[in-house]
């Protein structure tokens, strides 16, 4: 299907199925039940799953295929966000042109950063990308946030290009030459896809369950599916093969008449464009862009997502992104009260002890859990969640094969 081989078609269909049914799959617990807090099927979080999925898919094209570890990919996320915001402010609230500008601008930015950073490899490349990202952060935070209108004017550039610490926001005074300045309610207008508002949603009640279908989620999910499809094509293309060859042995590649530089730059730019797309989508879901989106922790997060899910695998980065965002939003909500409720059946002393032991790993301490998980994955499962899944499958299959074999033995024995 779509020019994919069988195995990849199956994977793609599974991913389509999962993303389309996500509002059901992520809401397995009935509303009002004690477990409902583990439901992840609300639009805001589902959008984050797919948007960070795109970010990680793109990062994996660079890191997974070529082995070059960029530590500054959040810069492109930020550029994408600011680009989309300016599109909203200047032209109109349709998300398509906004996303196009996000992708183009972050791509151009990636040409510049990539061209310079790729003069070095290994740790020096990582440091260079980190330096560029932190410079971008500083630019967004202060340099580009100075008043560019002049002291007595309150215009568009009152807070510069980026809005500084508070970020870039929509205002009813924005020109928006191709659309309404304000929404129907007089407030700032809402991003839309040819009229379909991103924040619109319908709810469906089935018994005690409530499922929410949000336009924003489905739009983001479609974009992610396209991004995922393109990534499969890249992985299976001659270009993808060259990138893996670069990771494997650059010396041999040189002496095989191939020039690694343009291949690397192309990979870097494609990967930067994915990040820009993700940044643009964030703004399309929630029109506000701040400099913290470019901070080094954001660059580090996508590295964690990719490694946790499985570097160099097709689906791994999406899984990693989902897991981290789930932990960030769900695990962090559990507090000691909830823990006490769970362990109320224990004798008092024991209950307190258990709660005290678990407490550091939940709520704000979710980072601790993430850190431990990350260590465990790097040490025991270098292939990430994907390798974990493969091992489980192999074990199950192995047991099945064994069962069959003992069945066969059992069949033979009576005949003796």
């Amino acid at each position: 299907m779509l020019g994919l081989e069988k195995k990849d078609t199956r994977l793609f269909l599974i991913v389509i199925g999962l993303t389309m049914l996500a509002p059901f799959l992520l809401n397995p617990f009935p509303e009002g039940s004690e477990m409902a807090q583990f439901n992840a099927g609300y639009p805001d979080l589902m959008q984050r799953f797919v948007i960070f999925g795109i970010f990680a898919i793109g990062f994996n094209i660079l890191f997974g295929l070529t082995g070059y570890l960029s530590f500054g990919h959040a810069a492109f996320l930020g550029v994408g966000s600011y680009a989309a915001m300016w599109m909203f402010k200047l032209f109109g609230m349709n998300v398509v042109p906004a996303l196009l500008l996000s992708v183009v601008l972050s791509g151009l930015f990636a040409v510049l950063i990539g061209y310079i950073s790729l003069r070095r490899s290994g740790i020096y490349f990582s440091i260079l990308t980190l330096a560029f990202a932190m410079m971008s952060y500083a630019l967004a935070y202060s340099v580009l946030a100075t008043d560019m209108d002049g002291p007595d004017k309150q215009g568009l550039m009152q807070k510069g290009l980026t809005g500084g610490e508070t970020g870039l926001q929509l205002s009813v005074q924005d020109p928006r030459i191709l659309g309404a300045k304000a929404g129907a309610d007089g407030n700032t207008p809402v991003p839309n896809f040819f009229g379909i508002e991103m924040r619109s949603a319908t709810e469906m009640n089935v018994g005690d369950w409530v499922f929410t279908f949000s336009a924003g989620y489905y739009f983001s999910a479609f974009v992610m599916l396209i991004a995922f499809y393109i990534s499969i094509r890249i992985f299976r293309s001659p270009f993808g093969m060259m990138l893996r060859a670069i990771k494997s042995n650059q010396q041999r590649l040189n002496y095989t008449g191939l020039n690694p530089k343009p291949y690397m730059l192309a990979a870097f730019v494609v990967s930067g464009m994915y990040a820009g797309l993700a940044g643009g989508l964030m703004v399309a879901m929630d029109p506000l862009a701040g400099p913290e989106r470019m901070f080094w922790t954001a660059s580090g997060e996508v590295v964690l997502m990719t490694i946790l899910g499985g570097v160099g695998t097709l689906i791994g980065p999406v899984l990693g992104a989902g897991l981290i965002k789930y932990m960030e939003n769900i695990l962090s909500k559990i507090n000691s009260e909830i823990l006490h409720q769970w362990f109320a059946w224990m004798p008092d002393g024991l209950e307190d002890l258990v709660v005290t032991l678990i407490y550091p790993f939940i709520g704000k301490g979710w980072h601790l859990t993430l850190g431990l998980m990350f260590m465990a994955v790097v040490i025991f499962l270098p292939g990430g969640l994907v390798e974990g899944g493969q091992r489980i499958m192999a074990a199950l299959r192995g047991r099945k094969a064994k069962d069959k074999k003992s069945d066969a033995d059992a069949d033979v024995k009576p005949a003796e």
Partner: protein
Amino acid sequence: MGILEVKNVGKRFGGLQALSDVNLSVAENTVHAIIGPNGAGKSTLLNCLVGKLIPDTGSVMFDGQSVLGRSPHEINQMGISRVFQTPEIFADLSVMENMMIPCFAKRDGSFEMNGFGAVRHQLDVIEKAKTMLEDMNLYEKRDMHAAAMSRGDKRRLEIAMCLAQEPRLLLLDEPTAGMARADTNNTIDLLKEIKEKRDITIAIIEHDMHVVFSLAERITVLAQGTPLVEDSPENIKGHPKVREAYLGESA
């Protein structure tokens, strides 16, 4: 005039004059061996031919064109392929993929952006890679991880990868170093067969006299960065200076 003309090449590393006044002419369609004791500058000379090092003085002409100042991939595209002392292959890729990469390089040049077409639809490249692997008796191993192959097979694969580019000059740096006798003999046979089948010039650096005298039509002896003599194998064997400088210690 030879296909490769090295004139007055000198190369200094800090205080060490690794090469001085090297003149070498390799005639087209011959096997030319460069021998010499350890540290004589053989690898350094080879590195000057493929763009890994730039000599301080002198000129290197391949087929009438200077290679100096060009990067390794450009020199390779001119028609010079190189086999390394320890096999350099794409260890993380399959044997078939290893074979396909030089076929792509031959077909598309040093850079071609094809990020959307599937590798499995590149039938001409697949066909060529398959033929090369069959020629080298590696076809049964096509799906193997290249890293998992034996040293001898890695060497075969590396040579096959170089040949897939249809080079006019094949450079080999001690291709049998560290090999068992059987593997060494296989490599000799392989190189003989290659020479018989194609129009190719081979320049080989070798330590093993058995290999040199089985293959070479012409031999240059390098000592302390300078060519001592250049002659036919028969004359080299009997040359007193050579026996003294080199053969005496290892033959």
